[in-house]
């Protein structure tokens, strides 16, 4: 019984902790997610700053190309000198308003120039529809020798170089050819022509590398990825796997938008994010520990109290037992006194009271002792064959003086002639308790009826009064120990609250039952059913 309780308590603690852990994990996950999002925002911001650096490189390139091309001299010699001396310039073309190639032209072209003319033909011939390529398109095209120029700064798709030049004075156009992105700086010429400068891609990239951070300047890893998804440049202390997932990604601003910056956090950084769960785990552990301590304390305290209560019960039992001997003597001498008192009515009345009260005290002690030895420790019952009506009559006669003293009319209707096997003391105790209850609670009806019947091998003894009765809802609960239908002292009722409990237990131990029934009169009816001798025998035989 106690170990069950302990198990239950531990189960409770375990469940509570479990629920809290789940809750904690959920909460900490939520928090982790939040920290992650914040970290991601930070990384994204960092990448945006880096994009600004890249843009600064581009602006510098643009400025220097604008400066270079600001000389009015457009002779082939000058244009070629740009190629020869400016690291940013790979090649230069010049077309007139009718898209006729003015440079490089003529029969005497260098090999580089011939290749350049071929590579940019679709652009200066205005055939190319310049548009911004989708990433997939780029990936597909970069492998093959393709010429899909793409415009990447400030113009809607479907433009040719000529229509671009009609709108603005200069700009960038990018297109894919062999090894990847090529960048063309174009500038509107006098007379509506256009001059186009192919930017040396590798120099541009080299300058980007020079402008971006280097070495171990980052705890994670930042990579600059080209259109083919290959790392062009990287920095940061974390040696990331190529397949590592990026936390944040930022496409560079046009015209470098074929490049992306990716931020890959180090495992330590990730662990740092998840680390916010640690206080949770610690908090939970502490809580679980304190709960355990608390429950353990409670259990120990309860055990201690139980032990103390047992001692007290033991004490009460001992005392009750000790009381029995003097009480027996009191009763004996009171009965002896009857002859000595003679006709003295007053003394006789007093003696009667002493007798009644000592009997009541005897029942009380009997109840206490029976109650204290409930369960496996109970005294075994000694069943004997007895005549139920005689037993009832004897108890009724015992109570008659007290009952009539309180104005009760006692009506006996006994029709159970067959004997039955029962412990006479137990039967007397049950009947005594029932009548004692009538005396205590049913005084208002001033009537008590005891009936006995035998049918179907069952002897039924009912005790009925015309008092306030027991509300239907309480008819089972009144058999619980220490339950009292009314605790109001002004009801005048007294009692220990164990009478009905032990009465039912005794009835059941004798193979019978004690029930509280509805009475037609409105009072209380208690029915004690006991198996008759035959039935008992039959039952035992069965």
């Amino acid at each position, binding site marked *: 019984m106690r170990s069950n309780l302990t198990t239950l308590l531990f189960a409770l603690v375990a469940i509570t902790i479990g629920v809290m852990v789940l809750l904690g994990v959920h909460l900490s996950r939520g928090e982790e997610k939040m920290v992650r999002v914040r970290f991601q925002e930070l990384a994204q911001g960092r990448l945006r700053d880096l994009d600004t650096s890249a843009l600064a490189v581009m602006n510098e390139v643009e400025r220097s190309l604008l400066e270079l091309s600001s000389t009015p001299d457009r002779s082939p010699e000058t244009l*070629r000198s740009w190629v020869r001396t400016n690291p940013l310039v790979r090649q230069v073309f010049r077309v007139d308003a009718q898209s006729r190639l003015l440079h490089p032209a003529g029969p*005497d072209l260098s090999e580089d120039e011939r290749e350049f003319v071929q590579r940019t033909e679709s652009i200066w011939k205005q055939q190319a529809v310049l548009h911004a390529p989708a990433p997939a398109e780029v990936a597909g095209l970069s492998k093959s020798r393709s010429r899909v120029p793409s415009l990447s700064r400030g113009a809607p798709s479907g433009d040719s170089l000529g229509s671009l030049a009609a709108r603005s004075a200069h700009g960038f156009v990018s297109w894919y050819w062999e090894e990847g992105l090529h960048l063309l700086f174009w500038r509107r010429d006098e007379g509506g022509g256009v001059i186009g400068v192919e930017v040396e*891609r590798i120099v541009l990239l*080299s300058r980007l590398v020079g402008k971006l951070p*280097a070495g171990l300047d980052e705890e994670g890893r930042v990579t600059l990825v080209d259109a083919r998804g290959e790392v062009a*440049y990287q920095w940061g202390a974390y040696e990331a796997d190529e397949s590592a997932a990026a936390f944040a990604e930022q496409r560079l601003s046009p015209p470098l938008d074929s490049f992306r910056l990716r931020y890959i956090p180090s495992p330590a950084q990730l662990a740092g994010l998840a680390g916010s769960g640690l206080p949770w785990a610690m908090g939970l552990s502490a809580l679980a520990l304190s709960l355990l301590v608390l429950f353990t304390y409670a259990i120990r305290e309860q055990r201690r109290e139980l032990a103390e209560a047992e001692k007290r019960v033991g004490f009460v039992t001992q005392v009750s037992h000790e009381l029995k001997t003097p009480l027996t003597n009191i009763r004996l001498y009171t009965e002896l006194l009857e002859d000595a008192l003679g006709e003295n009515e007053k003394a006789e009345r007093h003696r009667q009271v002493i007798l009644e009260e000592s009997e009541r005290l005897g029942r009380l002690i009997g109840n206490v002792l029976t109650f204290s030895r409930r369960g496996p420790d109970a005294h075994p019952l000694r069943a004997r064959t007895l005549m139920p009506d005689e037993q009832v009559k004897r108890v009724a006669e015992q109570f008659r003086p007290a009952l009539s003293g309180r104005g009760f009319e006692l009506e006996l209707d006994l029709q159970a002639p067959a004997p039955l096997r029962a412990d006479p003391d137990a039967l007397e105790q049950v009947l005594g308790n029932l009548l004692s209850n009538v005396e205590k609670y049913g005084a208002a009806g001033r009537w008590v009826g005891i009936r006995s019947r035998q049918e179907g091998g069952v002897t039924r003894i009912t005790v009925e009064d015309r008092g306030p009765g027991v509300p239907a809802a309480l008819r089972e609960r009144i058999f619980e120990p220490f339950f009292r239908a009314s605790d109001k002292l002004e009801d005048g009722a007294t009692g220990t609250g164990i009478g009905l409990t032990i009465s039912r237990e005794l009835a059941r131990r004798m193979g019978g039952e004690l029930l509280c029934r509805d009475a037609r009169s409105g009072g209380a009816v208690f029915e004690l059913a006991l198996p008759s001798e035959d039935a008992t025998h039959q039952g035992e035989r069965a």
Partner: protein
Amino acid sequence: MNSNPIKPPYLRSAGTRGLFVFACLLLGTAAAIGQERSSEKASEARVTLKTQLGTPLVAPNQPGKVYYKVGLTGAPLPPSHRRAPVNVSVVLDRSSSMSGDRIEKAREAACMLIDQLGPEDILSIVAYDSVVEVVVAAVPVTQHAELKAIVRGLEPRGTTALFAGVSRGIQEVEKFLDPKRVNRVILLSDGQANVGPRSPNELGRLGAAAAKRGIAISTVGLGLGYNEDLMMQLAAKSDGNHAFAESGDELARIFRAELGDLTTVVAQEVSLRIQVDPRVTAIRVLNRDAEVRGHEVILSLNQLYAGQEKLVMLELDVPGLTAGSSLELARVEASWADVFLQVTERASSRTELVASRDLGEVERKTDAEVMVAAVEILANEKNRQAVALRDEGRLQEAQQVLQSNTGYLLENAKKYKSPKLKSSGEMNEADAEALDDANWNKQRKTMRKRQHELDYQQSY
């Protein structure tokens, strides 16, 4: 007309038996080549421009190819000279493959270099692995001990971000870009570039762009794991040196040689413009990148060294000339920046081609020095072709090319009494025998290194 498939075409106009027969029918006179210098400070000039035709006299009515050599030679420095200050970025591969002896030797070599530099010089040190780090940003070299301590602290790790390393090296040199200093990036790598752009073509373009700013990139390949094509392109396009060190032990020697090169620079920003007669076509420049545009050839060299000739070999297509007539074949204009005087100097030269009926004289006037150089460079081209064939797995064809190259070189060695061609021939013969898989990696690196050395007249 010629049974030897690799016999250079110029032999059609000079030196075959068939031509002797034909030449006997002709009468002719020869006119000497002319060369003049327009530099006002001719006597002080530290650079000499010399233009030579392999065959200044040709047989009449015989159109064909001629070889034209343009040489620029730095004057030897007087013993008391003060060398030009240098602006060097040492770019060191510190990827994990450099572990052990290699990084040790690389550190030693770099420290040796530091010891040779002074407060006039600028040094920067860039180390790269998966990421690049400027370990010493460009500074005048005053704190030798500190610099060496930093170099000694370099530990290997990670992969090979070669492009980023070179980019940073160039950037550091650019900080102190000055015509009076010799600007150079020295790249050491033992591995394949595996982060960032890595094709020889792309790196070559980076080298070419560096050259436009007067920065040469010398590349040192260490061990057998590096990409020699990439390293060579980077050096070739920027007019730097290329070296192959099979083991770390060779690094100190190579760095010393590189430094020797650096400290004997007399001129930088060298440009050449060669204009040929409208009737003549410039076919190509055999040993260097150049803008070849019909009748005009423009090219630049990064620097010229004291006591050393840098040459440009042109292949020209000339028309048939009537006997006794001549044509002004080419006009050469050269300009360079003198690193000591801080002035731009110029020189020009004219070369005439004369048709002579006297084939004996045609033969006698043939310039052996030019012919030897031309043969060497042509054979070098064949040597490169053999590597390409071997790369395609056409081993036998590669072997055939090298074998006939050997024959061609040895034949000409005899003809021009050139021990240089003889040893070149022997080397080709050895190459032909070393194409098998077992040796190929090392062999290829050796061949590439030699090819570069020859084309660019590398001093070491």
